[in-house]
């Protein structure tokens, strides 16, 4: 053919999980650039995660389930036709005709048509109220139908059946499972496992029939499902029925095109995933593999996708069979089976742990030589990620230790570190331990190896293999998080950073200088706990001086040209004219740039470090205190004018804001704290965007916590309502101290609350209901703070020793830094950046 297509055309029929994996395999190998690829997809949406379909009912959106990265098709020049399935294949002409009548020529055809649910031929199976459970659309239909119904039944107690039952229960239906085999999940687990699973599922309120077939779907007067007649002669009432009695390969297209198809279905393929026509591949659940099996799991499908992609490029790869290991959470119960789960190998032995009270059943199958052959885990499958890769080898500890629960008998010390580098951790994508440990974090693992993106059962083990995930340490100096360091400092009453580092630091960090991350963190912890520890409350005393960031060190905020800004506290944003005049005079006399801040106070910029004491002498003299704008501490409590003046106000919000600001001023925390008080529900003070916000009600105050503005805004959560003044303060004392105690470094209350296990409800338990018995201690810590508060600037000014640091040059104490210069702008000043002649990069000569 002289006019042959310059780039060969691939047509892929089916865009499910395996189809998408095939496209990714092509893209990874650069084949998307050398081939023109067309995809015909029956469903109205691109490939999504069918394995986790049921998670839709626990809040996943169809977007969350999507497996197709946005832009993937465009980036690789792939033409995707949604909702337009292939109707016919003409192998002579090498074309595919779609339902819409379009004709697509191919050089290579790939069938990834998947499977369809098997519906037993029982009378009534097509009545309204009968469903299958396969696609997002099925799920949406079930959800819609269930809205006005109260009960549902699932025909089939296998993997998918239990998934479907979980979905029905999630929809609030009284749920029944009917399984023909004598136990649940007959393919994967043995009788003992089935019994444990049955008990647990029944305890959840589901009704299970085993060893019983479905004979007829009974319909009501309107013709829709009303009940079922079972093979034991009984009838049960049900509003809907979901058939989940297995799947069958979708091979009709191949059959019609004259390709070889298995006796019991499935498109016949060889080890290279080629059908009887070498131009046509079949992969996934539609294929009858060379070993004579149809694989209904995603991992073998992925393996076939890889094989077909390799073969296309002329590389040798074979698919000769696959591991049927699986781990699922069904109805909240962990169920896993791997390897020779049924002990089919001759001479195999079993080690079983069974506790029907807790519904835990674990069986390991071992050879007489001690080689792990397989196993079944029900109720507690945490060890699956470790056991499966060990299959085929002699485990490093005795099998009984591997099935006993932690704390019973010898503790199992087998961690992922015990696995060899060659152990396959992710069986969906065939990723070894070695490939995973080469990555820095889970995101990188997923991106670079795809591990953890299939069934997800290996994610836990991956987490334990990654150094960064395993290490909660604050920095390279400490293996502890900030909250753990807080506890160490508190319980050991340590007030010395060096003692903390030398006694609790990582071995390689002991005796060193620490770093810029942990020093301020520990400085903050010691400052938060100072009254309790008997440490100096003054953050610049003794060894604490070396820990503070430059802002805390000079009690001012460093600006870009090396000058500082000065922010006196203006509690609640209320200020007398006289004080306002003093601020104006100070700004004028020292040539400072003045700006009103978002926190209802005034920031004065452009002070040289040697000017700070003189500026503050004037401010302190006029009755101002430090505003702690430089510290990870309480900033401001903003307020609206409130009931006193505003015709809408219902409480005196200004007084409350002043009270709160004065109570919590100087409180060092993991991050800055902002607050506001609004005098009515109109919320002019924007309290719901603050770490703690208070809104007046007719009978008291509503307290909101965890709000944030900034780059990741978060509306605060309502913690408690209609509080009296005293109740409000008590709750806030507890809230703030609990945050200081448990948050990580530089973690605002918003992220802390989002991360807190159990979230708002847990917070309420701890600080409202005192579930941990902590409240008295939290209150006493705050009482200590309030009692010991002193103004840092007033203290500094009284001590010539403390004032010594406020010089630009140690060898020329009076001299200002000549590079800190200003030029006029809008009747004020701004930094003269030309004074900071930058050395060229690489600069020193």
């Amino acid at each position, binding site marked *: 053919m002289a006019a042959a297509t310059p780039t060969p055309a691939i047509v892929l029929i089916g865009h499910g999980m395996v189809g998408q994996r095939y496209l990714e395999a092509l893209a990874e190998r650069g084949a998307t650039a050398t081939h023109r690829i067309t995809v015909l997809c029956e469903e109205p949406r691109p490939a999504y995660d069918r394995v986790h379909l049921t998670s839709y009912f626990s809040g996943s959106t169809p977007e969350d389930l999507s497996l197709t990265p946005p832009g993937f098709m465009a980036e690789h020049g792939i033409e995707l036709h949604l909702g337009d399935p292939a109707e016919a294949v003409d192998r002579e002409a090498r074309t595919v005709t779609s339902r819409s009548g379009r004709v697509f020529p191919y050089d290579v055809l790939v069938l990834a048509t998947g499977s369809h649910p098997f519906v037993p031929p029982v009378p009534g199976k097509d009545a309204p109220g009968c469903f299958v459970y396969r696609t997002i659309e099925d799920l949406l239909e079930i959800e819609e139908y269930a809205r006005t119904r109260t009960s549902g039944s699932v025909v089939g107690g296998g993997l998918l059946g239990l998934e479907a039952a979980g979905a029905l229960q999630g929809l609030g239906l009284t749920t029944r499972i009917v399984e023909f085999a004598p136990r649940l999940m007959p393919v994967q687990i043995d009788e003992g496992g089935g019994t444990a699973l049955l008990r647990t599922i029944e305890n959840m309120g589901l009704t299970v029939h085993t060893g019983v077939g479905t004979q007829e779907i009974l319909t009501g007067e309107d013709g829709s499902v009303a009940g079922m007649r079972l093979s034991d002669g009984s009838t049960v009432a049900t509003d809907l029925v979901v058939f989940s009695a297995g799947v069958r390969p979708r091979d009709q297209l191949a059959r019609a095109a004259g390709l070889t198809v298995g006796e019991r279905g499935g498109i016949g393929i060889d080890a290279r995933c080629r059908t009887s026509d070498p131009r046509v591949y079949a992969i996934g659940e539609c294929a009858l593999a060379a070993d004579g099996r149809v694989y209904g799991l995603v991992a073998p499908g992925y393996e076939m996708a890889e094989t077909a992609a390799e073969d296309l490029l002329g590389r040798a790869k074979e698919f000769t069979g696959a591991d049927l290991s699986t781990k699922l959470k069904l109805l909240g119960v962990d169920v896993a089976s791997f390897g020779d789960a049924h002990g089919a190998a001759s001479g195999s032995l079993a080690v079983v742990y069974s506790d029907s009270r807790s519904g835990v059943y674990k069986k390991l199958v071992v050879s007489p030589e001690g080689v792990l052959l397989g196993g079944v885990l029900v109720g507690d499958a945490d060890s699956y990620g470790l056991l499966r890769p060990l299959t085929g080898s002699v485990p490093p500890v005795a099998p009984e230790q591997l099935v006993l629960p932690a704390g019973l008998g010898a503790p199992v010390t087998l961690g992922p570190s015990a696995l060899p580098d060659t152990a396959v951790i992710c069986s969906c994508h065939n990723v070894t331990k070695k490939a995973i440990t080469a990555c820095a974090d889970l995101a990188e693992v997923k991106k670079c190896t795809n591990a953890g993106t299939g069934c997800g059962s290996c994610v836990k083990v991956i987490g334990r293999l990654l150094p960064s995930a395993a290490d909660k340490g604050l920095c*390279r*100096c400490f293996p502890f998080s900030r909250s753990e360091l807080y506890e160490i400092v508190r319980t050991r009453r340590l007030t010395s950073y*060096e003692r903390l580092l030398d006694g609790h630091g990582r071995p*390689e*960090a002991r*005796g*060193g*200088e*620490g*770093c*810029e991350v942990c*020093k*301020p963190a520990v400085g903050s912890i010691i400052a938060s706990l100072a009254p309790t520890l008997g440490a100096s409350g003054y953050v610049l005393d003794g060894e604490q*001086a*070396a*820990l503070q*960031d*430059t*802002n805390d*060190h*000079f009690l001012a905020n*460093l600006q*870009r*040209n*090396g000058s500082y800004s000065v922010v006196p506290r203006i509690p609640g944003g209320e200020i007398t004219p006289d004080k306002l005049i003093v601020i104006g005079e100070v700004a004028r006399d020292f040539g400072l740039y003045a700006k009103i801040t978002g926190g209802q106070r005034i920031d004065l910029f452009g002070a040289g470090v040697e000017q700070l004491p003189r500026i503050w002498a004037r401010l302190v003299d006029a009755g101002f205190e430090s505003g702690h704008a430089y510290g990870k501490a309480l900033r401001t409590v903003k307020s609206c004018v409130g009931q006193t003046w505003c015709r809408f106000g219902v409480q005196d919000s200004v007084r409350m804001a002043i009270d709160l600001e004065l109570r919590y001023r100087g409180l060092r925390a993991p991050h800055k704290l902002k607050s506001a008080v609004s005098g009515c529900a109109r919320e002019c003070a924007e309290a719901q965007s603050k770490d703690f916000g208070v809104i007046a009600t007719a009978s008291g105050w509503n307290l909101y916590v965890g709000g944030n503005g900034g780059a990741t805004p978060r509306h605060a959560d309502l913690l408690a309502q209609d509080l009296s003044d005293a109740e409000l303060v008590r709750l806030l004392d507890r809230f703030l101290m609990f945050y200081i105690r448990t948050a990580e470094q530089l973690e605002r209350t918003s992220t802390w609350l989002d991360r807190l296990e159990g979230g708002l409800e847990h917070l309420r338990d701890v600080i409202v209901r005192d579930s941990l018995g902590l409240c008295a201690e939290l209150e006493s810590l705050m009482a200590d703070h309030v009692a010991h508060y002193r103004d840092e600037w007033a203290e500094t000014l009284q001590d010539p020793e403390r004032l*010594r640091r406020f010089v*630009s*040059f*140690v*060898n*020329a104490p009076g*001299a200002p*830094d*000549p*590079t*800190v210069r200003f030029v006029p702008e809008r009747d004020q000043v701004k930094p003269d*950046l030309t004074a*900071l*002649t*930058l*050395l060229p*990069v*690489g*600069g*020193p*000569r």
Partner: protein
Amino acid sequence: MTVELRVSEGWLTVCELSALIPGRGVAALLPDGSQAAVFVDRAGRPYAIANQDPFTGAQVLSRGLVGTVAGRAFVASPLLKQRFDLESGRCLDHDEVAVRTYPVRTAATSAAR
């Protein structure tokens, strides 16, 4: 004990060693108008590098926090937190950037220039 820095004119006395807080720095004005940042570590060992932060141009490195990584002392700029090795002046976060270093010593008596 004093801390001395070598500049083109010879050894320059900067300050008493006791004026330095271990783990913190001070700035020194040099005869040519340039500035040095002088530090002392826990062990009492002094270091001196240029005070100018090459990323912003501000004379602020003396106000950064001192740390140790892989056994070597560094200072983190107080502005954008890049770290500089106190012995070599090399920026640990950007290979191609470095600041000047100065020979520095502690002396029992104030040495003349």
